[in-house]
């Protein structure tokens, strides 16, 4: 079951490569939140209730509801055009993301010496690289946040594969940090929307030598 969910997560990454509308991106992020909840629910079922509530809060409340709503609000408020405007054609994006997944597959099979759940490692590394890829190739500032969130999801998957080694306090700190940084990024996106006509990275090229 875990494997199926993880594969679904990888497919959602590929779908992100061909998605055109920003609302599709947001929906994919919400779906990824649900998938993450499923994976963590199966993996951590034997761990105590507080941890379970914590995970539930992080995946469902935070990743599936709060962030998509917040992103929708940002998009509506700044009247952002619906298309994602990638620099590359969709076909190439899909090919590259597939190559990323293939590369992570090979990498996870090469690495030896440590007991690691290969599936988790594979999907996490693919999410990291696909997130970076989305950040690099999309024109809008708000899609950069989405790429960052994809990376965060990858990190979350990787941290699931370790069981739960970090203490509660550290975990809370990390979650809060991520939450705050997304909020801060959102605030700055709003500012960028107020300052410049269009929220493209082209507006952000004035600092140079």
């Amino acid at each position, binding site marked *: 079951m875990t494997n199926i969910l993880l594969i679904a997560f990888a497919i959602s990454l590929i779908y992100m490569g061909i998605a055109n509308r920003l609302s599709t991106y947001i929906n994919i992020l919400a779906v990824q939140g649900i998938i993450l909840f499923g994976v963590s629910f199966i993996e951590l079922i034997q761990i105590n209730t507080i941890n379970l509530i914590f995970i539930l809060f992080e995946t469902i409340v935070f990743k599936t509801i709060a962030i998509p709503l917040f992103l929708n609000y940002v998009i509506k408020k700044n009247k952002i055009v619906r298309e994602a405007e990638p620099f590359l054609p969709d076909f190439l994006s899909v090919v590259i993301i597939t190559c990323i997944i293939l590369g992570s597959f090979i990498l996870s099979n090469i690495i030896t010496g*440590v007991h690691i759940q290969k599936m988790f490692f594979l999907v*996490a590394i693919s999410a990291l690289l696909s997130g970076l890829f989305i950040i690099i190739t999309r024109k809008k500032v708000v899609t950069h946040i989405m790429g960052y969130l994809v*990376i965060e999801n990858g990190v979350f998957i990787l941290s699931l*594969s370790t069981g739960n080694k*970090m203490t509660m306090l*550290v975990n809370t700190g990390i979650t809060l*940090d991520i939450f705050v940084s997304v909020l801060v990024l959102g605030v700055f996106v709003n500012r960028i929307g107020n300052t410049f006509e269009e929220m493209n990275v082209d507006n952000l090229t004035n600092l140079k030598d």
Partner: protein
Amino acid sequence: MFGYYLIIAFFVGIVSMLNRNRVVRILLLGLFLAIQTAITIYAYFHLNESNTIYFKFDALGVIFMCVLTLLSYTTIYHSFIYLQHRKDSSRSQSIYFAALIILIIVMTCAYLASHLGIMWVFIELTTLSVAVLIYHERTPLSLEATWKYVFICSIGITITFIGIILLSIAIQETEITNFSFKAIPDQLLHVSASWLKMIFLFMIVGFCTKMGLFPMHTAAIDAHTVAPPPISAFISTTLMNVGFISIFRTYSMFAHTSILPWMNMILFLCGLISIIVSAAYLLKVNHLKRMSAYSSIEHMGIAAIGIASGGIGYFAAIFHMILHSLVKASVFYQIDQFHRNFRTYMINETGNYFKRNLPGAMVFLLLLIAITAMPPSGLFVTEFWIFKALFTSGHFFILVLALFFLSIAMYSLAKNFLYILFNQTKNLLPAEEKPNPTETYSQYILLALVVYLGINPPAGMINLIKDAVINLP
């Protein structure tokens, strides 16, 4: 004790955000400086005691805490001058000082953290609190720089977090997993080399965003350009020290494993390319603050090379960071006064600073000597030790390359500073106000300290640095 410090200091920060009265603001800042000084003195006399589970007054942390506390005084003083001249509203001044206080607190925590996860949390918090300060001027340019800084730092710190997770996977077979810096090295001894290399790469790439080393140096440059000058002074000194501490602690964690030579090679690469990049950009840069930022990158490269060359290099790298903090902070304090005189940062629109502001010009001249590591600057001593360490460890090729690009950087710095000081351009804008010599005193004091520490370092400091590097091979 440290818990009390945290509570009281955070409380002062929050109150100063709500406060709108000028006198109360000064009192609050005075109170904060008193608390910060008290905890620093307490830490110095309670070395290696851990007050809470997650913080410990270890030598490395205490050294940089002292530097931070010293620079807090000057930075708060110069912030007052800066805000007074900008005629900012009381509200934005309150936000500025509250963010500054919180930044100082979280940097202190990042220095003293003895647990990997806690250090990570506080490093991320430094990014968020410094973002408020970078955005202080509220211009489109500052928006762009803040966005880039927060975004790149967030990604970098996420990559570090991946490294930490991989580390926890690696050590999960040992019986008790413990993420304190003291316990990690023993647990790493039977982890395979390829896995260790991967962890190290992930962690180092993330921390490079904070230190301003090669692969991730770009964010810091833009942040320097638009931040208020007193904050630029903080970004390029104490905040880069946060990055240095994190890299140094990571390095010490892995220093007893089999990947030590490989790790040194990576740090050599980062350091050398940082020097090359900064030398290349220094040749064409025309913005005074960007120039100082590139010079910081160059010094970070030197410190990284110092760590990588081992032996006396460890000692010299820490010493170099301390002295660089003092020098670079005074550069930015003086840049603030310079900007008020010329109303621009562009070097080719300025000149004849000696006529316009003699005390400030003298500061620039002395700073040029200090920053290019000419004697009697203390940086001369540390760079000499670092090159000596390179020589004794047999890295002649790196030594030659580093010296070559350092001399290019030296040439560019000298060219630009001397242009500002002596160029006889006519039709410059008249100075806005009469320059005030008292604003330069802090820079003279810091420069005197650099010379003094280089020539006659006090025994207490030497012992602290020795204590910090004692566990390294």
